[in-house]
């Protein structure tokens, strides 16, 4: 079974620029999550999708972050404009609704300079 795929693996941008991350979840997984993991901390949930609908985006900084999940499969997370404090690893995860165990991708390491 293929895992959660994310791209790119690394990205370096200047502050105030925009950036987008892509995630392809495990086939058949209805639930998709984006987490932000700042160095030395545990992952923090940014947004959760159930199929193509948003279930929880209470911790998403909506003035600069946006996410979508077209057709209930792939998802993109965008930051515009980026700030220095956005430097982190952005993790995508997916799960079967009935089981709940979340499978994580390798993440995208973002550095904002």
């Amino acid at each position, binding site marked *: 079974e293929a895992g*959660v795929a994310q791209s790119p693996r690394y990205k370096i941008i200047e502050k105030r620029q925009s950036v987008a991350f892509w995630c392809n979840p495990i086939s058949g997984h209805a*639930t998709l*999550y984006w987490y932000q993991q700042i160095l*030395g*901390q*545990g*992952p*923090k*949930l940014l947004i*959760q999708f159930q199929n193509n609908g948003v279930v*929880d985006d209470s911790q998403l900084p909506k003035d600069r972050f946006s996410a979508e999940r077209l057709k209930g499969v792939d998802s993109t997370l965008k930051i515009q404009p980026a700030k220095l404090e956005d430097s982190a690893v952005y*993790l995508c*995860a997916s*799960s079967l*609704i009935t089981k*709940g*165990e*979340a*499978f*994580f*991708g*390798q*993440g995208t390491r973002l550095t904002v300079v």
Partner: protein
Amino acid sequence: QQQVKQSPQSLIVQKGGISIINCAYENTAFDYFPWYQQFPGKGPALLIAIRPDVSEKKEGRFTISFNKSAKQFSLHIMDSQPGDSATYFCAASKIVWRLTFGEGTQLTVNP
């Protein structure tokens, strides 16, 4: 009420020893307590999980002990191996797939 506090931040154990990592939570509505293992450059991977209706769960060398009244749970790694060296995160959730993570423990197992 959503916090999960984890200790220690780092842990060094000799090969063959027992590694113990502790977590405490505040929200009594939490009903799912997993432990994740993360290697450098990789995403977290589920190691073992427990629900509050049992006090202990064992899978191989990994055991979760759960104390509902104290709102604490811990991970025990028996016969620790150098390959266990990683960062370990406890987590908790009210609905099984909305996870609140602890701060992480960096485990080093010396040969």
